[in-house]
């Protein structure tokens, strides 16, 4: 398969970015989207190697930088905005699980980084998501140290509760929800953690405090507010739903009530 690519190029956080157009040929329909980008990069590196071509004005910006790691949809590193959709045209997959057979031969594919105030661009398609770490540091944990804890079976949790908690815990922290939200809100990400822990007896004790601290940190870091468009849940590769936001709101209100 052959494709035309429009790829966002940006030298660093301060530089002004722009689109560059490339062509890739003979891509196997079985290749993943990131393997297609690997091939593009090999091509761009070879172009950059050729001093004659560079002298003749070959405007190579070198290989395209993009975040990726596990390539099996669980680490949350990959983060591309493809043809206007976070993680591209397939549902419930991350970019690394998207395959080229989902595109038409000869199609033009536009590739951009996550665009959000909370996630400044580092280079090309790579963004800085440390804000997510900071939100979790504000309270996304149960305050227990190592050792001195009760036996695992001393805490009974119903099958249904454990499953519901797991639904929120499945969040991979990729940031698709933020990139998709017109307000750049991190509500779904925050809610997934708050709700997952609030459901369990271990997490319930600090639930209200946790909700308040994490929401405050989210606001402080420049993420927008939630206006219930539900776009985030549509694009979440792990099918985290807005029902978690409802639970976050309950905990948040309960914290406010106590104030």
């Amino acid at each position: 398969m052959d494709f035309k690519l429009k790829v966002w190029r940006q030298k660093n956080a301060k530089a002004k970015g722009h689109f560059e157009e490339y062509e890739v040929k003979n891509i196997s329909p079985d290749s993943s989207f990131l393997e297609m980008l690997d091939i593009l990069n090999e091509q761009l590196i070879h172009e950059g190697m050729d001093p004659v071509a560079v002298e003749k004005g070959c405007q190579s910006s070198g290989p395209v930088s993009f975040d990726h790691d596990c390539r099996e949809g669980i680490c949350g590193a990959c983060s591309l905005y493809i043809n206007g959709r976070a993680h591209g045209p397939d549902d419930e997959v991350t970019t690394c699980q998207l395959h080229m057979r989902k595109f038409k031969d000869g199609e033009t594919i536009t590739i951009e980084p996550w665009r959000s105030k909370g996630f400044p661009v580092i280079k090309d398609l790579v963004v800085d998501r440390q804000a997510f770490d900071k939100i979790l540091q504000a309270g996304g944990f149960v305050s227990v140290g190592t050792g001195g804890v009760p036996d695992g079976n001393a805490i009974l949790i119903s099958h249904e509760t454990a499953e519901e908690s797991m639904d929120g815990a499945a969040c991979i922290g990729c940031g698709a929800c933020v990139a998709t939200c017109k307000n750049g809100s991190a509500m779904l990400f925050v809610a997934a953690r708050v709700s997952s822990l609030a459901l369990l007896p271990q997490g319930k004790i600090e639930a209200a405090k946790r909700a308040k601290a994490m929401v405050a940190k989210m606001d402080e870091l420049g993420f927008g507010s939630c206006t219930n468009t539900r776009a985030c849940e549509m694009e979440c590769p792990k099918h985290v739903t807005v029902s978690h936001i409802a639970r976050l709101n309950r905990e948040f209100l309960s914290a406010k009530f106590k104030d």
Partner: protein
Amino acid sequence: MAEKLISKIPEGPLSEKWTKHKAQLKVVNPGNKRKLEIIVIGTGLGGASAAASPGELGYNVRVFCISDSPRRAHSIAAQGGINAAKNYQNDNDSVYRLFYETIKGGDYRSREANVYRLAEVSGNIIDQCVAQGVPFAREYGGLLANRSFGGAQVSRTFYARGQTGQQLLLGAYAALNRQIAEGTVKSYPRHEMLDIVLINGEAKGIIARNLVTGEIERFGAHAVVLASGGYGNTYFLSTNAMNSNGSAAWQCYKKGAFFANPCFAQIHPTCIPVHGDQQSKLTLMSESLRNDGRIWVPKKKEDVMKLRRHEIKPTDIPEEDRDYYLERRYPAFGNLVPRDVASRAAKERCDAGFGVNETGLAVFLDFSSAIARLGEDKIRERYGNLFQMYEKITATNPYKEPMMIYPAIHYTMGGLWVDYNLQTTIPGLYAIGEANFSDHGGNRLGASALMQGLADGYFILPYTIGDYLATQFKNPKTDVNAPEFEAAEKAVREKISRLMSIKGKHTVDELHKKLGHIMWEYVGMARNEEGLKKAIGLIQDLRKEFWSDVYVAGNTDTFNQELEKALRLSDFLEIGELMARDALNRKESCGGHFREEMQTEDGETKRDDKNFMYVAAWEYKGADKEPELHKEPLEYENIKIATRNYKD
């Protein structure tokens, strides 16, 4: 130098060793802990827990990872579960049984005392994770659920759907975040350790590259903990994450830490096959599928050719023309033979020309008889998420057509040599999790990697490191302006500028793929003397080609993924050679290491306990010099040595 291999295994009965040892370990008082600094490299299960726990104790910890967040370490990708000897099922599980099955699964090449301790603390891990809010699967009565795994006779595997590694890592990462918020731990994401710094022969800091700015930075400490994972990506294609690498451990080796059993690499039989030369990595399909799937290839070559040309479908091949080769060769265990046996059998069929896809490197994993017996719904309930993942990747519906699978490199049992305290041969340098060698011998059992990472980080290292740090609290903070830091930084800068200045004709990936082919061909599932000698020569040639003809795009003072890859490949090109050397030396077959010269008449592994019941620990002797082999004899006082048998 042999005196360096002191394993420090405590005296006394097996079940009392750890308790007695703990009582003898020195402890540092709380006031002095505040004066001491620890560096942790890596944030997987081992690293995150080994940073959080000492942080809670009051030490000052700096933790480094190459990803944009500690949560992305490759432990996140573990699917199946974590073992623990809780005996919650009342099926007569015990610390001893878990210990015994781990030693046996490792084909009698791991250390008794370490493995026993691992089994002993396994129960604490589950308690700890539950307290952190890890949503383990539960029974309807609210108790923790268990499932069975390979190599075990009891049901002791705890799990959170097919995402156990993710949930355990999020637990450890949360503990880490809590300490970061408290200020005891400082986190350095997107930082890569490029060298270890020794002062008076002891580990006192690191040189790291800030992967965003390209700056080379110095960090000092009183001790360094390596939790940087394994070196499976030497093979280019593996189930490891793209950025997983062996470089941090390798710099320690080059500074004097011995590297143990490098040839022990695990090949997992059920991975989605290579689709062509555009492939970048391999995806694992859980071992549990072999409970209901039957593995086969056609009996007739003409059917194979038709399959490859897509002229027929696998379902067109009649039952009598199918070769269920595992059931044929291993009637007692059938499709449930251990990982190494299943992998070798698939290779044997594909080498004989019966591989079923275009590349000739795939076999079928067929669920049709299970679906006929149990119905599609039952199979969906058991394996739905795996079937969905398979369909996303291959665009084939495994309910209608058999899956195609092939073995792939998955885990490395070898790693830095450590003593009972998890300290390497460099004082002050510790190695935990997959980065060390100690617990899995020649073959790791499923659901035991997660157990080891967390055992080391939560319950072993925080105690043993105190024994060393108790001798350090009088020492002032390490001075990063010391000449040793100066020299290490200079060497790192020189290596980088040498790489950038080559400006050759080959990309980093092109050369890495070449290395992968050599490794897979000669240091893969089956090895022999001639091939291993050839591999050593080929790797040396490739290394020369790399250093004279690689092209590293971009600049040093920016975010540059090509430079990151080039630095890692420069080390893989050396690690690969040591793996081949170790495999050449170990003239026996055991676990994942299969020497063709050493097999039984039916093609099974043949150990040589008389000559090889030892840990091979290699000492670096300088560039292009042969490393020196040291042997740590393995003594089994509590276990009767036996041969594994899966036929009857």
